[in-house]
């Protein structure tokens, strides 16, 4: 198998023949699993610093690169949110804060958090790290493309950050970038700022497409022997469905950014009707701003689930592991994830009830939207039923999961308000909306991310994060975030509109000055508390307790690698063979309270394990 290139570049090629030696048992044996369909994947092992850590083709390294870049943008987004809260809680305190700056910070905060932080973190970060490990693959199927995907994302982030430094500053048109205002004077950053934003988004979409193809094909076509779709951990299901959504939803974003770029640069009128600006009629005419909104939300609503579904999947795994109990209703969970994903393409215009679209759409979209509430509610029931009669470790990871349940149910319920068309009318464009989506797609997924960090850090770094610091981190974050967003709903009830730089002395607002100050203080504290995690990580990397193999006694494949942390190729010489789902915890009759996926049936004959 060794040829010239191999010797030069150091491919470690494993022939398919060596694989077949280990075909397990013969047909008819209860431990029998079909032999491998495909020969082993050749991997490119880096040698130099550049190929090992920078342009690396190992999905795990790419995952960490994605994670770090996303966290960097997340910190930028966090600082922007502080600045916004400073203005809202204590208007006029910061002298440099003009309305222009405020709107630029709002916009960049929103875009960064939704696209460059959460999407990149869940799919690029956790997806890259966990998919190959959890489905039992050596690596992603196209490692080179995967590497390009990260660097494309990196360039997209660089372009985005560059927009802070161009004349006029970054765009201030709100994260939805609605035309006509996004590209007209009167909106901050309507020159270079919006252009860089659109370019950055297009680059992100291209980069993501490269990554997304990898995630999908790895899950569909490169699972290990015995790993059926219904034996995959829910984490993989969540990330997989989110990737499918992204592959089908990002095109709409790409198209709308191309069209808006042309409107801006070439003066086409896709989204631009006849416009009178400062007494002069502009050179536009005939376009439709609502078309942009349709395109944007055709992307935007699936985007919400691109963030939420991986969180659903990951939290299911965390709850199951730490409650020492199988996830309740696994099949229902899978179908709920898939169903939510499919339905999310038919609900987009519930963001547009008061946008002036065809009013009859309200009936259709309200109905489809509330249908989604059913599978979502089923997932919530299943999470809490998993806790029921479990053996719950109340550790940091579980605390984050419980925090997730509280915030997610809270945010989900307010979603029923906003999805129900006529209830949305008084509440849309008020702080109720802000509170709702921060609770449901800001705080809730963040709780999962934090839980996942505490859960998988021992795998990535080989050391356990400090529990005591973790608990401080959790309680400050949870209580703080809850006290930011729970009262904020009531601002919306009063009727306070969102995206207001200042309320002056409106009667709705004067009563709420105290609340705004309180929310701002809580926001400062919650933001600062995140640095506890960074401190914890740095401290742990130096002096943390070694984790050893499988510290949480989990079943799924990522904990059963030959080394901790796993090396390139993940599983040493032989790929694992899977015999069961990853949720066989506390099986009656079993020696231990967990049963790894690789345990063959012959070893557990005397237990009451169910066939999966």
């Amino acid at each position, binding site marked *: 198998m060794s*040829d010239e290139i191999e010797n030069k570049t150091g*491919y470690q090629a494993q022939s398919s023949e060596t694989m077949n030696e280990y075909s397990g048992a013969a*047909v008819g044996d209860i431990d029998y*699993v*079909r*032999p*491998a*369909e*495909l020969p082993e994947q*050749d*991997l*490119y092992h880096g040698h130099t610093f550049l190929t090992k850590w920078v342009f690396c083709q190992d999905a795990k390294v790419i995952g960490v690169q994605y994670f770090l870049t996303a966290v960097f943008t997340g910190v930028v987004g966090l600082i922007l949110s502080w600045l916004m809260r400073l203005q809202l809680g204590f208007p006029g305190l910061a002298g440099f804060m003009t309305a222009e700056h405020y709107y630029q910070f709002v916009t960049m905060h929103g875009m960064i958090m939704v696209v460059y932080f959460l999407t990149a973190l869940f799919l690029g970060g956790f997806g890259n790290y966990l998919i190959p490990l959890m489905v039992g693959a050596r690596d992603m*199927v*196209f*490692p*080179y*493309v995967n590497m390009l995907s990260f660097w494309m994302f990196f360039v997209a982030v660089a372009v985005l950050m560059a927009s802070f430094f161009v004349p006029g500053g970054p765009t201030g048109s709100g994260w939805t970038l609605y035309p006509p205002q996004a590209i007209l004077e009167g909106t901050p950053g309507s020159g270079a700022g919006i252009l860089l934003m659109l370019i950055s988004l297009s680059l992100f979409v291209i980069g993501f*497409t490269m990554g997304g*193809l990898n995630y*999908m*094909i790895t899950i*569909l*076509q*490169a*699972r*290990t*022997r*015995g*790993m*059926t*779709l*219904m*034996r995959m951990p829910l984490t993989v299901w969540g990330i997989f469905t989110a990737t499918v959504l992204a*592959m*089908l*939803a*990002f*095109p*709409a974003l*790409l*198209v*709308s950014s*191309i*069209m808006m770029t*042309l409107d801006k640069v*070439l*003066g*086409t*009128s*896709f989204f631009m009707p006849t416009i009178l600006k400062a007494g002069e009629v502009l*050179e536009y*005419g*005939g*376009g*439709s701003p609502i*078309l942009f909104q*349709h*395109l944007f939300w*055709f992307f935007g609503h699936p985007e919400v689930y691109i963030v939420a579904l991986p969180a659903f999947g990951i939290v299911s795994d965390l709850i199951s592991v730490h409650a020492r109990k199988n996830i309740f209703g696994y099949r229902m969970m899978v179908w709920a994830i898939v169903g939510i994903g499919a339905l999310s393409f038919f609900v987009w215009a519930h963001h547009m009830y008061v946008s002036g679209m065809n009013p009859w759409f309200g009936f259709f979209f309200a109905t489809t939207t509330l249908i989604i509430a059913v599978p979502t509610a089923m997932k919530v029931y299943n999470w809490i039923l998993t806790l029921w009669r479990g053996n719950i470790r109340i550790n940091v990871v579980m605390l984050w999961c419980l925090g997730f349940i509280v915030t997610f149910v809270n945010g989900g319920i307010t979603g029923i308000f906003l999805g129900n068309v006529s209830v949305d009318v008084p509440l849309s464009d008020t702080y109720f909306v802000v509170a709702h989506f921060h609770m449901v797609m800001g705080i809730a997924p963040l709780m999962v991310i934090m839980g996942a960090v505490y859960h998988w850090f021992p795998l990535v770094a080989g050391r356990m994060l400090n529990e005591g610091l973790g608990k401080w981190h959790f309680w400050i974050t949870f209580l703080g975030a809850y006290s930011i967003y729970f009262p904020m709903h009531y601002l919306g009830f009063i009727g306070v509109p969102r995206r207001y730089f200042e309320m002056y002395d409106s009667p709705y607002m004067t009563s709420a000055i105290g609340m705004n100050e309180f929310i701002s203080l809580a926001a400062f504290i919650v933001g600062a508390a995140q640095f506890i995690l960074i401190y914890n990580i740095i401290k742990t990397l130096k002096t943390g307790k070694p984790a050893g193999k499988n510290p949480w006694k989990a079943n799924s494949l990522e904990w059963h690698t030959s080394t901790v942390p796993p090396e390139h190729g993940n599983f040493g010489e032989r790929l694992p063979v*899977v015999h069961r789902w990853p949720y066989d915890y506390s099986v009656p009759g079993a020696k231990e309270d967990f049963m790894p996926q690789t345990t063959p049936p012959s070893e557990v004959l005397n237990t009451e394990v169910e066939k999966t």
Partner: protein
Amino acid sequence: MSEQKIVDYEFKPGFKGMAHDTGSDQTMFKGVHWGKAMMWIFLLSDTFVFSCFLISYMKGRASTPIEWPNPSEVFALEAFGVPVPLLLIALMTFVLITSSGTMALAVKYGYEKNRKMCGWLVLATAVGGLIFVGMQAYEWSKLIHEGVRPWENPFGAPQFGSFFFMITGFHGTHVSIGVIFLFIYAYKVFAGHYENGGKRGWFTTMRGDYVEIEILGLYWHFVDLVWVFIFAFFYLW
């Protein structure tokens, strides 16, 4: 499209087979090469891109109160002193379908390991694509001469020019990228990269195989497919 034989796996037909394949381990698309599966999913994503373009076009055209120019007149061409409606477009369609046919045959001969035939057919496809791009360039320059611009249009609604240049431009970009890759792959076929177990690729550690010609073919047929829709919605509507 590879030989469907997998040890200890029974292929069932139809929807039963779908359920069986989906419920099985290792792969969902049995016998489908990774690269081919990737190309299919990519094309699905690209379908959404073109659909969004065409939907925007339909929405834009349906909601303009200004009259939309009659494509049959705008795209007419003088032949022997007589204006023939859509002549150039008809020729472009002809060229593109021809190239699609040669591509399909190239895939067939590739699988039969007929290196020469496959190579020549890929090359013919590339030349067809090149002619198409050339004709499109001619069409663009003709319209620009007549005063059509992305932002204005002497024949009616200004969106006509915007959508025309954007959509055909985006399609033309796809064709051009395809032509570049066709030339590269024609070279690879002639150079024998897919013979004797295959040469390792430039971008990847995977070994070359004639399945790559099918993957390229999928892309090329997709470009043709999009043209079918553009032809119907842009030129005939």
